[in-house]
């Protein structure tokens, strides 16, 4: 059974725990029979969107397979992360998995203080500060953006696509940059519009934006605004345009819009975390998740487009995986 807690309840419980510990009522006792506790940290709700839910599912599957006792905190903001990580490590959690690269600063800060706890980042990391208890599973986002852009461009009959992004943060800007690069690599004269909604939750705004760009001739959209992507998908379905889904196969949710989706192999990454932790092999390494090792892929079959579109993208992915094409 999974124990769930959100940030607000967590703060209350943390305060309560601190009071009890200070009074001598509580102590960090470990029983030999207790399963090892592992914890997950998620930026949003584990029941909404297409980033945290599949990550959470992979986390719980891993915990079940390796007989860990799982717990998690969702809606954990980056600024609250150091306190949450400290509290978890102090109560004896042996491995803490943070499901966003935005937690890297918090992990770097806290991991030094708790050498007996393994900290893991899933998403992206360029270095782990030389810490043996800080590892990362890092998706090759450049590759991801490049192929997404190429898939949208090849699917576009109007040679006019749009990226509907959330907030203009560095990782989003980089993803946009490589998406445009990928689109232009297959259709040099493609027109790419990039619009930031300024929010990851405002569905109405994303829908309004998507409706507007479709009216101006865009026929394929790349939703990249997390929870607000629902609006982009709805606008595409309402106006006979198409989309490239993200992180998980979204064709069941939006059958009239989704051509294909990027599918991150969360299960593989989380399973490796569980395995390496069990075998004592977590040692500060960064494991790259890319096309060459099934770190991610595109959902097949492609819908609403000619078979040649899928063939071109599969061929592109194969060449990138074999280093025959560089996305840089």
């Amino acid at each position: 059974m999974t124990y769930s807690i959100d940030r607000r309840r967590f703060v209350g419980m943390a305060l309560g725990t601190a009071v009890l510990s200070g009074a001598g009522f509580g102590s960090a006792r470990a029983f030999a029979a207790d399963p090892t506790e592992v914890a997950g940290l998620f930026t949003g709700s584990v029941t909404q969107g297409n980033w945290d839910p599949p990550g959470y599912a992979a986390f719980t599957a891993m915990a079940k397979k390796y007989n860990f006792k799982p717990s998690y905190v969702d809606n954990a903001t980056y600024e609250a992360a150091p306190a949450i990580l400290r509290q978890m490590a102090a109560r004896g959690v042996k491995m803490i998995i943070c499901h966003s690269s935005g937690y890297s600063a918090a992990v770097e800060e806290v991991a030094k203080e708790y050498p007996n706890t393994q900290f893991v980042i899933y998403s992206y990391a360029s270095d782990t500060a030389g810490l043996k208890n800080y590892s990362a599973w890092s998706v090759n986002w450049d590759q991801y953006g490049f192929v997404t852009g190429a898939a949208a461009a090849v699917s576009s009959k109007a040679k006019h696509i749009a990226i509907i992004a959330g907030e203009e943060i560095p990782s989003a800007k980089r993803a946009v940059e490589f998406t445009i690069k990928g689109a232009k690599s297959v259709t040099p004269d493609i027109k790419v519009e990039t619009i930031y909604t300024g929010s990851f939750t405002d569905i109405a705004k994303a829908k309004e934006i998507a409706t507007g760009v479709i009216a101006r001739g865009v026929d394929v959209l790349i939703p990249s605004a997390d929870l607000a992507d629902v609006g982009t998908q709805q606008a595409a379905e309402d106006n006979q345009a198409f989309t490239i889904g993200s992180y998980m196969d979204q064709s069941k949710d939006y059958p009239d819009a989704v051509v294909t989706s990027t599918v991150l192999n969360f299960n593989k990454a989380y399973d490796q975390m569980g395995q390496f932790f069990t075998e004592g092999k977590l040692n500060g390494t960064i494991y790259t998740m890319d096309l060459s090792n099934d770190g991610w892929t595109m959902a097949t079959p492609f819908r609403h487009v000619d078979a040649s579109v899928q063939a071109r993208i599969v061929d592109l992915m194969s060449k990138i995986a074999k280093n025959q094409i560089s996305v840089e």
Partner: protein
Amino acid sequence: MLFDPITISLLLAAAVRLSAPMLLASLGELVSERAGVLNIGLEGLMLFGAFGAVLGLQESNDPLIGLLSGALWGLGAAAILALAVALLRADQIVIGIGFNILALGATSLLRQVALNPSYNAPSLRAVSLYRIPVLYHWPIVGRAFFMQSPVFYGAVLLAILLGLMLKYTRLGLIIRAVGEGAGAADAAGVSVTVVRFGAMAFTGLCAGLGGGYLTIVASGGVFVDNMTAGRGYLAVAVVIFSRWRPIWILAASILFGCADALQYQGQAIGLSIPPPLLLMSPFVLALVAWVLMGKGKTGPGEIGLPFLRGQK
């Protein structure tokens, strides 16, 4: 040409669509403020309404019942808020801010407990679009003003009726009297508590409907956490910006909607302004409203002040 007729038409249409939830919430807020209550909890009321609308839609498969449910959830939430503010005379600002934080957590929890994440909404066209014959063909403004949700038309009508009610009816006079001088109104036999409670309940009804519009009309029947994204705060600014006049609220809501729409229409048409600057524009307008226009003579004299009998 950056601003060709099609672009202007799209911009205006988007502005009007985006203004509708703010318009509804602002009209509700207007009545509270006219009665002397600065209802900062508007954001939370909209959030409860947004959740309630999707719950109603999910249970009935009828968008009209969904909208009604949103309004009633707003009303219920407002009753709790009014209990603290009008009845117990707590600090309006502090309670309002606390209420918004509570609403964020509560609706997130309720969503997890009560909403089916795989629910597919039925067709929402009945509440999302009505073309007014002939007029919707007009160039530029046709699409913007005459191809909108029936809820928007209802909000326009409400603005007109509220204007008449506040100016020409006994009820309007009582509401304004309580906001201008609660002590004098009390001495004249008016129950300040009842008036303020009723005004806040009306605010909840309107804000709840605004939240319902956001989820059912503008978001296809989907609720996500914190989806009001600051619209409640902007609605408070709209009321001040419009000098507490219902018809001006209509214009100010569309102006704020324009600023909102310009954020991304500007990016799409290649305006050489950095996106963060465009994204700030509605909030800059809100700041202007609060700083420059918040202290006008037309504002209710006792806005934000709890009524304590015998105290000046």
